[in-house]
């Protein structure tokens, strides 16, 4: 079945404060959508709410993946249904090796008794690590512990590659990356482009979009999408900033849920 991800009128709050104020977006397999916007406009909240972070409460709206109600699912069920979020700040977990973690994640998608063989897993993992120019030693390091910012981001992309999701959300995957690392990460994403996979790229800067060409660009302000367009919109934002958008729409303060 063709991938179809539909967000409709999504409202979400954290600690009683509403951050998402009715956001709608549709992503089909093969499409790359980028969400841009200044800090504090609700971009990362969108990513967390879609994945089901326990701190965020969805108060209204719906999210469907291939006709299934995502909001009814627990976090792990969302992942197994095909949702993947590359996080801005991945957790560090001492004592759990990267490879044990990855194998558990892969096996969580497989029937009991049909677990991936160790040899096959290692071959897959090592192949993808090579593509991402990761030191093989990272397989045996504890999950994200002591990783640099760039290493964590590469590790997120490694997980994406191994888990083969149908909807990928990249939350500020470019933050903290130098240009070489950015290219490697973008390369990893580009190799994953396919007709059955949709991407939602959340970013602050247009820079990343030079390497991953989006089909659609959306501007987020005040907890909702205020403007949509094609790749040319991203370029204009890079050149002219966000003020013209605010002016056009009569927005004075683009942020949401910030303390005055």
């Amino acid at each position, binding site marked *: 079945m063709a991938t179809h991800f539909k967000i409709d009128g999504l409202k979400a709050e954290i600690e009683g404060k509403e951050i998402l104020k009715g956001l709608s977006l549709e992503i089909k397999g093969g499409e790359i959508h980028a969400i841009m916007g200044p800090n504090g406009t609700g971009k990362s909240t969108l990513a967390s709410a879609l994945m*089901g972070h326990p701190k965020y409460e969805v108060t209204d709206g719906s999210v469907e993946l291939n006709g299934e109600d995502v909001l009814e699912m*627990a976090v792990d069920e969302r992942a197994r249904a095909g949702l993947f979020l590359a996080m801005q700040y991945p*957790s560090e977990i*001492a004592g*759990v090796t990267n490879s044990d973690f990855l194998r*558990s994640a892969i096996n969580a998608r497989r029937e009991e008794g049909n677990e991936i063989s160790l040899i096959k897993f290692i071959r897959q993992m090592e192949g993808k690590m090579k593509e991402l120019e990761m030191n093989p030693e990272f397989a045996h390091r504890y999950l994200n512990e002591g990783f640099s910012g760039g290493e964590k981001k590469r590790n997120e992309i490694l997980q994406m590659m191994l888990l083969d999701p149908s909807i990928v959300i990249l939350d500020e995957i470019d933050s903290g990356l130098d240009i070489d690392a950015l290219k490697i990460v973008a390369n990893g994403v580009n190799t994953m482009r396919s007709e059955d996979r949709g991407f939602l790229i959340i970013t602050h800067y247009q820079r990343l979009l030079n390497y991953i060409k989006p089909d659609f660009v959306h501007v987020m302000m005040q907890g909702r999408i205020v403007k949509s367009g094609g790749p040319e919109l991203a370029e204009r934002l890079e050149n002219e900033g966000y003020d013209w958008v605010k002016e056009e729409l009569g927005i004075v303060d683009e942020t949401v849920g910030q303390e005055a």
Partner: protein
Amino acid sequence: MSTQTILPIDRETLAALSQNNNEPAWLSALRLEALELAGQLELPVVEKQKISRWNLDAYGTYTKSAAIQSLSELPESLQSLVKLEENSSVLVQHNSSVVFQQLSAELAAKGVIFTDLQTAVEKHADLVQKYLFQAVKKDENRLAALHAALWNGGVFVYVPKNVEVDLPLQAVLMADDAAATFAPHVLLIADSNSRVNYVDNYLSTEAVGVDQVVHNGVVEVFVNAGAHVRFASVHHLNATNITYRRAVVENDGRIEWIIGEMHNGNAVSETMSVLKGNGSSSDAKVISAGTNDQKLSITTKAVHFGKSSDSQMFTRAVMRDQASAIINGITKIEKGATKANGEQTEKVLMLSPKARGDANPILLIDEDDVTAGHAASVGQVNPEQVYYLMSRGISKQDAERLIIHGFLAPVISEIPLENVQEQLRSLMERKLGQ
């Protein structure tokens, strides 16, 4: 009310028991003297646990089990722990007595002694008499005195000078009769410049109800100059557990403790190294898991007398349900122990809101020219970590399991014996899984 009435055995019965076991006069006298002390002494002071409310009187009676010819006569759960090969050295205690023992011919030829303590009393009286109750004294408190009066079966290890024992000597101590006294005493003597690996497993079957009987055990290890002892012990008993382990380490000697306190009943466990000699060192790694309404007091302790002595202590405990644990780490550096170094870390992970854990690092230092450090933490499973793992499709239960494994991994992965690692992992799984 006379104090006699609270003792689990009377003088006449104890004397008769000693006689029936053909014990020498010095040992009979020692037992009777200890019994008398037990009537006079107080319980040990155990911080923040009211052990006087525990079931500490159910010692049962001495129950001799029949010797067995082969390990296949033992319950399956126990057989999986022991890999008996021609060159392996294995001893099995069943309730009050040792029922099986084998020492590899090679080690026997080198003069290594590995037998039950009751036999050693008979055959190696000079050695036993010289060391028995020298590390853990019978007059320390009522529990130590009761152990000295009632100990049975037990393990005796002697490694002669310069002899190296690589393959571990393995002991299994099993209780499956709630009416039987189970009070093994382990006495290990490593003579100068020897090396020895020792592993034991204490376990009980369901026939022994939780906290229905008392296991009161003592371990004494003597590490002579330049000797190196690695002592691994995994306890998984339903009984109320009292275990005092103590090593006395001479010049340049080294003791490594690897302890798994995986009981189902209440437990007091103290593992202590007395670093007597210059350049002596100790390393203690302890893990524990508590469930239901278990109460645990886990203490590691190092006492430095020797110059340039070094102690490392590392304890990790996982508590769930209403279990509570008091984890003490005590580094004591005596005056004159210059250039001594002591480091300790205690960490407790709590899996449920009603679980309790106290980590108490204690440094008692009477010498200026030393270095010492400690770290302690008590916390719950980090919800961000659970979310992260679940966001990759891992179920909540598996996510928590991974985090618990990760928490214990720094101790378990350091254990030099693979089958002990495996056993601890599976015990942990059984105890904390569900």
